[in-house]
């Protein structure tokens, strides 16, 4: 039996059936059954469990979202260089298939667990609960979750993270926040990445940043380049403050 959620399934399963008590209205011939549940609720309940566990274990969990190629793995790699001497760091990385990211990040000598989602476009709280079985939670300060590269679907799934961060590379275009607002609406921080490309693009920083602020008023906005290291310090300072 799965301890995280009682699902009775090995890892990667995701059928979670919960039996609630419905009220029935019985008519003479047909029968109406009230359901009264949210389909996203199962995920929210498991996310709340994860969040409580992270709080108890004093782990800052950062869910990193963004398109494929936004630079999530490079950012993490750079971040590890900055933080790994001062913090005990774990990484969960999600991809449809392969273990490329895990290999890249494991070179940094931190604990990395790769979730292969198969054909599923996002990580959910259930997958995270099982991934946590691969970590010694008492020996972690920061857990990064690199979500499946996708600017749409992961937005709908709370993982129980402490903070949600969206990485948008400037090569993707300044119109993306207004076209994909959902993912930005839940972000605590947005990192505009690959800013070393700026001279070669017409990226309109002011438009992107204004739109992001409109979608999420309280968001923390940062500009970074994992290649040159620009902005990495501010980003790491922001992370370090979360652990206090």
């Amino acid at each position, binding site marked *: 039996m799965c301890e995280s959620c009682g699902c009775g399934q090995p890892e990667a399963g995701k059928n979670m*059936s919960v039996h609630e008590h419905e009220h029935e209205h019985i008519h003479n011939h047909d029968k109406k*059954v*009230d359901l*009264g549940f*949210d389909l996203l609720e199962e995920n929210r309940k498991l996310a709340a469990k994860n969040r409580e566990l992270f709080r108890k274990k004093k782990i800052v969990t950062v869910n990193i979202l963004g398109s494929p190629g936004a630079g999530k793995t490079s950012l993490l790699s750079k971040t590890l260089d900055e933080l790994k001497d001062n913090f005990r760091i774990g990484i969960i990385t999600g991809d449809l298939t392969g273990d490329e990211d895990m290999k890249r990040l494991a070179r940094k000598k931190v604990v990395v667990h790769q979730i292969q989602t198969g*054909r599923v476009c996002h990580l959910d709280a259930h997958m995270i609960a099982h991934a946590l079985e691969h970590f010694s939670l008492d020996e972690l300060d920061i857990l990064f979750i690199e979500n499946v590269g996708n600017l749409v679907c992961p937005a709908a799934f709370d993982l129980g993270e402490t903070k949600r961060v969206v990485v948008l590379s400037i090569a993707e275009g300044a119109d993306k926040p207004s076209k994909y*607002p959902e993912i930005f*609406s839940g972000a605590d921080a947005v990192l505009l990445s690959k800013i070393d490309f700026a001279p070669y693009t017409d990226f309109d920083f002011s438009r992107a940043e204004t739109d992001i602020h409109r*979608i999420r008023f309280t968001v923390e906005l940062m500009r970074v380049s994992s290649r040159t290291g620009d902005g990495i310090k501010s980003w790491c300072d922001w992370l370090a403050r979360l652990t206090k």
Partner: protein
Amino acid sequence: MEEKLEMHEWSLASDFIARIEEEAKQRGASKITNIKMKIGSLSGVSVEAFKFAFSVGIKESIISEDALKIEEISAVSKCSDCDKEFSDTMGLDACPYCGSYSKKLVSGNEMFAVSFEMEEKDV
């Protein structure tokens, strides 16, 4: 099984179908009709994709083809400055009363299963 990316609407649809069938079969249903749902404009769920996934998922089930009835709910935000509520379908709008972008979502991120109707087996 189709070899394509399984967008989240597919897993939501197949979990939902399994759940309804379970509920209905426990009650001795022979046919399920009139499944009512409410989906918010900021739920992160595409209604069209969900409908399509649902229509594929109910083949060989006791759910009738035209059973699914979805009410689409437009998101509503509440202004943090003037406390008024306003329609904010895509989550991009400023408060129409005071112009502030400081706001909290009141509704629109739900994917709510309301009810279904069933016909019972003849005993």
